[in-house]
């Protein structure tokens, strides 16, 4: 299922470009913000939940996942180099799974690990940091599957992903309870909240619901991406 050559090509194509600097921007903002607040409000109790929970799960995690997830395969499809990979007998399921695995690990590195570091830097938040890290790891996996799928389905994956993150998750997910059923951020919060229950994290889903829906969405997205990639067609010019 996992193809090391595909992983090597993906990793070099993704990390080797200047876009890698873009991955690090949200993470750097989170850590710097945490340091500033720790210096200015060392005794405050509320801000670690708000900064790590709200900013971490609403901005850092989805945006990092979006840039990485849509890039690992979508960039190759856009520039045409994917044809060199697809004109080989490698199973399409292996291509999708490997791209997904690389995207998930990179998202963990650039979103979940900074979340853990910021959590450990914040005062009195050791258990909260662990809970948010676990939630962010789960979120990295689910988001990676969703955004890899989006990049195979459409050339406008980044725009659609932004709409999903900002409108569906950012707005509807907080206003309409039912929208959380299809919100990766709420799956992640649900998992984090089960480890460290916290009212301000605003998890609207239970652990079992979050885990079950997270698995269904991940597997479903990977199956759909594989089926779509199996029927990959070069965009032709009419005669």
């Amino acid at each position, binding site marked *: 299922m996992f193809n090391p050559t595909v992983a090597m090509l993906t990793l070099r194509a993704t990390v080797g470009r200047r876009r890698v600097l873009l991955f690090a921007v949200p993470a750097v903002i989170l850590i710097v913000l945490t340091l500033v607040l720790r210096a200015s409000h060392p005794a405050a109790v509320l801000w670690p939940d708000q900064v790590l929970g709200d900013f971490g799960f609403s901005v850092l995690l989805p945006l990092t996942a979006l840039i990485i997830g849509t890039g690992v395969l979508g960039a190759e499809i856009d520039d045409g180099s994917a044809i060199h990979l697809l004109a080989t*007998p490698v199973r399409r399921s292996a291509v999708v799974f490997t791209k997904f695995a690389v995207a998930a690990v990179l998202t963990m590195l650039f979103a979940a690990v900074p979340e853990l570091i910021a959590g450990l830097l914040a005062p009195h938040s050791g258990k909260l940091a662990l809970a948010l890290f676990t939630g962010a790891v789960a979120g990295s996996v689910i988001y990676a599957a969703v955004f890899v799928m989006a990049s195979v389905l459409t050339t406008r994956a980044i725009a659609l992903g932004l709409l999903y993150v900002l409108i569906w998750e950012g707005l509807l997910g907080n206003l309409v309870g039912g929208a959380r059923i299809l919100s990766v951020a709420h799956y992640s919060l649900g998992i984090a909240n089960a480890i460290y229950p916290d009212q301000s994290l605003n998890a609207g889903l239970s652990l079992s619901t979050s885990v079950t829906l997270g698995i269904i969405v991940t597997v479903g997205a990977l199956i759909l991406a594989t089926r779509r990639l199996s029927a990959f067609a070069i965009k032709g010019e009419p005669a």
Partner: protein
Amino acid sequence: MSSVIDLTNVSRWYGNVVAVNDITMSVGPGVTGLLGPNGAGKSTILHMISGFLAPSKGTLTVAGKSSWENPDIYRTLGLVPERDSVYAFLTGEQFVRATAKLQSLPEIGAATRRAIDMTDMADAAGRRISTYSKGMRQRIKVAAALVHDPEILLLDEPFNGMDPRQRIHMMDLLAKLGAEGRTILFSSHILEEVERLSGTIQVMVAGRLAASGDFRAIRRLMTSRPHVFNIRSSDDRRLAAVLVGRPYTNAVELTGKGLQVRTSDFGAFCEQIAVLTRDHGITLRELLPTDESLESVFGYLISSQGN
């Protein structure tokens, strides 16, 4: 000759636009050229054969199997796409080696070296592809497509961007591969490339197969078509009278700007026109062949097929 690639009544359309219209062709071992002007549907045909496009209608098989949604076909098929995008961050050697690994070859190092040597890229193999010229990129793509020693090789406009020396080397390589019994199908819009390399051609125009078969027969058909010249001279009326009696003249018409002559023998007409005007004391001021584009040649082939 048994065929390796078979298309039967294959059509491909995009919305209301027909890119390939009811093509039936067979391609066997050896080098076959797919000739036609830009936009004729050559790339669409190659994309369908290589499994990167589904026919809208008809059946298409490669080595007896459908190539659509069948990645196993790439064990016996190599593809050199026209688009210039490769993994530019890799060196040429890394690119070919990665392709060998994706093919799960048993001896990756030996296969990589062999493919690089075949394409004369050994000297540049250690450099990043981003530093390559267009011709070098073409050759490294060919090396990657050859790394698993495929029975079938498809190349979309392979000579684009190559300098004359690289072009000759690539032609020799493809000729050698064809002589070994492999099936080589390449597209080109340049008649001379196809003429030099392939004994068999498939001529496409506007999505249709205009001619198919031995190159020499099709070339004869091309050169024997009527040619039209516009002429201006010191005495158009007398020149018209002189030309009317010649066997290679089909028709002569006096126009407001001079003469328009239709001839069935391009070579004889070009040889004789200067001699005739000199012998009759007529000064030739202008001699213009009209509509000598490849499109007009192909258009003639289509109309002659219909008759």
